[in-house]
């Protein structure tokens, strides 16, 4: 801290660079340097003309805006290098209107910087504390009020008031219940169950195992998804029950999550990433790797869906499948572990 003199005649006075009342160190101002336009009348005139030109151009832009709005056809497309093809009308009215407001702003700033007074001044402020007399008066007034209210003597009123005030926040806590109800088993269960048909997503057709080619991929959902009537519930269930079906040479299968969970090389896995729940169906048929587009978690579907890369901590859950009498794919049972990302209660 520099020991400096207060630069102005502060009513409270300053000694050793400190304001006596606030105690704040006061710094000196840099010496004022006049601008070119302050000294040279020619420079001032030039600056004046520049500002007026900007305001004038702004007016011109407004006129051009009106002309463009009327004259440029609404469906004319033009190609501008680098930017590409775009609608000429939109470009013209957007550019002229944008430039009009920009030029007003630029002109105003240029005016303020070049021509308006720029001498540095200190805005005088007195200290924020009240005087001692005022403080004493307020204190005694409060004490008299407390005494006259009888707050100390009337115990029953005091205690009941304190009790009422203590209970007042309770409803706010009670309302927190609306954050629930707790999910219960819903995070652990999907609508997959024994004998539920696997159907193609978007077209909802049953899938014959023999129709799936080697290296094939099908995005599928459970058939009973179509039985749910509420749209919100449909989306909730779809979000958990979506699966992918792939077919690989049975000789390529290193391991599975359960014995004979495939059907002749046809495997079904959850589509929901175990990291943060993104839909994961970037299946690369040569390597049997399944890639999640969000954070690049990679699962090896030929080896129990184990994680081979990325932030996912759990393998991709496999759905045990088989075929019905007509050869259509059905689930052997539901998923035997929760699908999707980890959650608090899962442990």
């Amino acid at each position, binding site marked *: 801290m520099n020991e400096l003199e207060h630069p102005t005649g502060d009513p409270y006075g300053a000694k050793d660079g400190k304001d006596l009342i606030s105690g704040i160190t006061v710094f000196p101002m840099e010496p004022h340097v006049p601008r070119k336009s302050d000294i040279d009348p020619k420079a001032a005139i030039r600056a004046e003309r520049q500002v007026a030109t900007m305001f004038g151009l702004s007016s011109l832009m407004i006129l051009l805006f009106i002309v463009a709005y009327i004259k440029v056809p609404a469906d004319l497309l033009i190609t501008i290098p680098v930017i590409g093809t775009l609608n000429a009308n939109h470009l013209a009215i957007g550019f002229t209107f944008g430039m009009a407001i920009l030029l007003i702003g630029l002109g105003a700033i240029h005016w303020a910087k070049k021509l308006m007074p720029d001498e540095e001044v200190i805005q005088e402020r007195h200290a924020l504390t009240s005087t001692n007399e005022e403080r004493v008066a307020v204190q005694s007034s409060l004490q008299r009020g407390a005494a006259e209210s009888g707050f100390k003597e009337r115990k029953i009123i005091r205690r009941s008031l304190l009790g009422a005030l203590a209970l007042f926040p309770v409803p706010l806590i009670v309302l927190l219940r609306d954050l629930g109800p707790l999910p219960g088993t819903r995070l652990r269960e999907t609508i997959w169950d024994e004998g539920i048909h696997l159907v193609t997503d978007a077209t909802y057709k049953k899938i*014959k195992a023999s129709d799936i080619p080697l290296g094939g*991929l099908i995005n599928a959902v459970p058939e009973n998804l179509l039985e749910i009537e509420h749209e919100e519930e449909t989306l909730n269930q779809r979000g958990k029950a979506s699966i992918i079906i792939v077919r690989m040479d049975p000789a390529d299968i290193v391991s599975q999550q359960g014995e004979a969970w495939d059907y002749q090389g046809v495997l079904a896995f959850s589509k929901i990433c175990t990291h943060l729940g993104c839909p994961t169906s970037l299946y690369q048929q040569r390597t049997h790797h399944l890639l999640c*587009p969000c954070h690049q978690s990679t699962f090896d579907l030929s080896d129990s869906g184990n994680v081979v890369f990325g932030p996912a901590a759990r393998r991709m859950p496999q759905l045990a499948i088989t075929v019905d009498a007509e050869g259509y794919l059905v689930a052997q049972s539901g998923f035997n572990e929760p699908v999707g990302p980890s959650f608090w209660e899962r442990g």
Partner: protein
Amino acid sequence: MALSKRHPAALFAVLAVALGTTGAAYAAVNAQTAPKVVAKTETQVEQGKQLFLEGCSSCHGLAAQGASDGPSLLGVGAASVDFQVGTGRMPLAAPGVQAMPKMPSYNEEETAALAAYIATLGAGPGIPTAEMLDTTNAELALGGELFRTNCAQCHGASGVGGALSEGRKAPSLMDSNAKRLYEAMVSGPQSMPVFADSTLSVEDKKNIIAYVTELQANKSPGGFSLGRQGPVTEGLFIFIVGLGVLIVAAVWIGAKAK
């Protein structure tokens, strides 16, 4: 020195005659072979086999049974050959994680011959007929839904492609055409899974092709699409350029005039 003794125009005359003869001969041969290919498929298969033995067998094996450098082509079908050779992915420019498209090394006739030969080695998806590619009555909305369900995860919602793992990538579909799209779906080139007609019907494929064609025709109306990659490039652009302009403006406003 000997050249200077001749008339200056002699060289041009010789060149013109030579070029003319070659051109005429080529046209004549072309005119002869074109109908033959259609008429005699056995010849086509024979020609395909020759081309295969010369150009492909070193990697794929003499009987197309596959080897350490190339997969088996038994049962891949004509669609696969037409896609891989027709887009220049095969023969490979260089060994790598993924075959990249380039100028095709074989002309249409040779590609057809190769496809015909490979098709005789085992049943596989054939080259789609014009009727299979006719999208006149396609349902665009369903095509969009099917595209987002089956294709968008790799090729992106706007079809511009995207990255896969270990240096592989899903190519952009913006310069593709109906035939190539169909062939790719039905044959599953490289990392791409197979979407056979039995699981994704011909009608479904038509709908998808119609949707991709619509995406191709739908130019970015605002200009400056930034690759149509969505929030990543757009966010990066606005962070660097947008914030940059604001910072420059703030510095200018705050600077003292001289």
